[in-house]
């Protein structure tokens, strides 16, 4: 299996892309798509494999710079990072690449270069097409579809994995149906949530022929550096007064801010988390009862909840359960953070489970927010639950 470099997508694909298979990243126009292929390519070379990048709309001198923008130093992989130059011929420029497509608007010329590079590779490699749609624009829809079939068969012969970035401009219905349907072994849809403008992006596997499809859409953001990161737009952090919510938000976040007065939160805590391929915006509520209307406001559209408890203060546990009710979080994934585990008298997670009368599988994570102990374990558990719930 070749990994895509996007852990959540690899999960959806049941481990990655098997050798000899093809995958198309099928994107809605205006949604960032090329980074998916780049990330797959970079993952291959950084794991010791070989990657071939077929450029169609970018000067090959710029390709490594583009990878560097995401924090991926392609230059250090030398000849394991191969470029097939399908651009210079288009603008009449000279190329210093080993593999050059002499006439990029001719599918046969492209096929010749692609076959050559596939034959030359002495090990199964990943071949990434920067933009299949540009090739289609240049060579025509029908000729490109025929060529794709040929490239895929050739890749299968040599056990290469072949990956296409494709922007679904309004081509003919037949062409789009082919690209989205039968021409590749797997299709990953990349779309945008639109309301006047595209304000959020998602990916989801539409098809694989090597396993069952996991029907989930996952929100993502593209970070520079970082690449594609699964994005959780709202995670709520709630719990009674003085349980350590603000400390937890700050401990978890790469950047954060609190609206507080005299050391206690009076409006909200906000933090942004970037961890293990996931990015999330987290919102902490105040804990005092007089702020309950704010808690309800903040909890709208949350995708998961951290309930923070002071493990030494059983007197507040009833209030904690009440706060969960206020958030109207019924059905949302909840992780209970048993904070202040370093203090004398702190209850263990099992004791807390009994006190709260929680189900045996409700996750209760021991945490010391002041030293960040356990905070990322709690995050990992919540992310797993959110992903399992398919709530994104």
């Amino acid at each position, binding site marked *: 299996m070749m990994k895509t470099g996007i852990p959540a997508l690899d999960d959806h694909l049941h481990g990655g892309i098997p050798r000899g298979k093809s995958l198309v990243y099928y*994107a809605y126009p205006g949604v960032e798509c090329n980074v998916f292929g780049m990330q797959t390519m970079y993952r291959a070379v950084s794991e010791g494999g070989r990657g071939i990048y077929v450029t169609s709309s970018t000067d090959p*001198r710029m390709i490594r710079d583009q990878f560097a923008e995401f924090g991926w130093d392609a230059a250090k992989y030398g000849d394991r990072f191969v470029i097939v130059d399908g651009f210079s011929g288009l603008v009449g420029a000279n190329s210093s690449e080993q593999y050059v497509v002499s006439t990029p608007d001719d599918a046969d010329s492209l096929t010749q270069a692609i076959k050559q590079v596939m034959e030359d590779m002495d090990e199964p490699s990943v071949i990434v097409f920067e933009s299949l749609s540009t090739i289609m624009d240049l060579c025509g829809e029908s000729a490109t579809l025929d060529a794709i079939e040929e490239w895929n068969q050739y890749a299968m012969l040599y056990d290469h994995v072949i990956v296409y970035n494709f922007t679904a401009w309004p081509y003919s219905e037949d062409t789009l149906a082919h690209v989205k349907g039968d021409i590749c072994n797997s299709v990953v849809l990349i779309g945008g949530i639109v309301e006047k403008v595209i304000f959020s992006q998602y990916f989801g596997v539409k098809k694989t022929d090597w396993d069952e499809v996991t029907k989930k859409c996952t929100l993502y953001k593209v970070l520079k550096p970082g690449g594609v990161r699964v994005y959780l737009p709202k995670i709520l952090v709630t719990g009674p007064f003085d349980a350590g919510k603000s400390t937890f938000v700050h401990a978890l976040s790469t950047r954060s801010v609190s609206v507080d007065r005299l050391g206690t939160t009076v409006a909200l805590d906000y933090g942004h988390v970037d961890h293990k391929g996931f990015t999330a915006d987290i919102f902490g509520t105040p804990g005092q009862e007089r702020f309950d209307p704010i808690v309800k406001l903040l909890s709208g559209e949350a995708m998961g909840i951290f309930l923070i408890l002071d493990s030494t203060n059983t007197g507040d546990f009833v209030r904690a359960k009440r706060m969960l009710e206020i958030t109207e979080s019924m059905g949302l994934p909840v992780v209970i953070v048993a904070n202040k585990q370093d203090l004398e008298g702190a209850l263990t997670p099992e004791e807390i489970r009994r006190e709260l009368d929680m189900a045996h599988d409700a996750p209760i994570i021991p945490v010391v927010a002041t030293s960040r102990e356990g905070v990322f374990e709690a995050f990992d558990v919540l992310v797993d639950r959110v992903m399992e719930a398919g709530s994104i």
Partner: protein
Amino acid sequence: MTYNLGISKIDELIGDIKGGTNIMMIGPPMSGKDDITNIIAYHGLINKNAAVIVSTREPGNNVLDWFESRDLSIPSEHIGIVDCVTRTLGFGAPDTENIKMASSPVDLTGIGVKISQFFERFWMEMQLKETRLCINSLSTILMYSNLQTVFRFLHVFTGRVKAANALGVYVIEDGMHDDKTIVTLKQLFDGMIEIREKDDGYQMRATGFASKPTPWFDYEIDGVNIILRG
């Protein structure tokens, strides 16, 4: 939601332009289309609009310089430039707050992504609900991509302009394309600003906004003002 071009007599004659309108500006080389495009963007900027300018002929920094060299007190954070030139010159310039780099004029996917990113930023983050999209020029894009490809691209983005109640201005060089190209592209636009050479100068008029075209006006560009005569 309505817009004005910032060209006084023509604005008076055509009235308010409703949000979602796409305009083709067509004229001969050296007729000042770059300036006119920037002035239309500038007129929006001083009225708290955002401006997204796709530059296919000169680096994004030059476009910013156009505004700065005129010492215009406009909110620079409201300008977004999609630069399709710098990277084709072999410069690996990174994106900045104002300038996002597309790989080349061939990279319609990249151009589309950058336009969408600016629209998202202005609309969602900055709550600027009025945006002007200026593509200067379609002729460069047509040099590298065929008519069908450019039509598909414009079909999507004129639709986005409509959806966002924005104003789209698309520049085309007169005389560079055959009639079929112009006729095909015209279908996508709601109106036109036409420019022609006349005697020693140039004239402009607007068509498609009212039942009759406006008269032809001689014009002169003075800083950020377009002075019409006639």
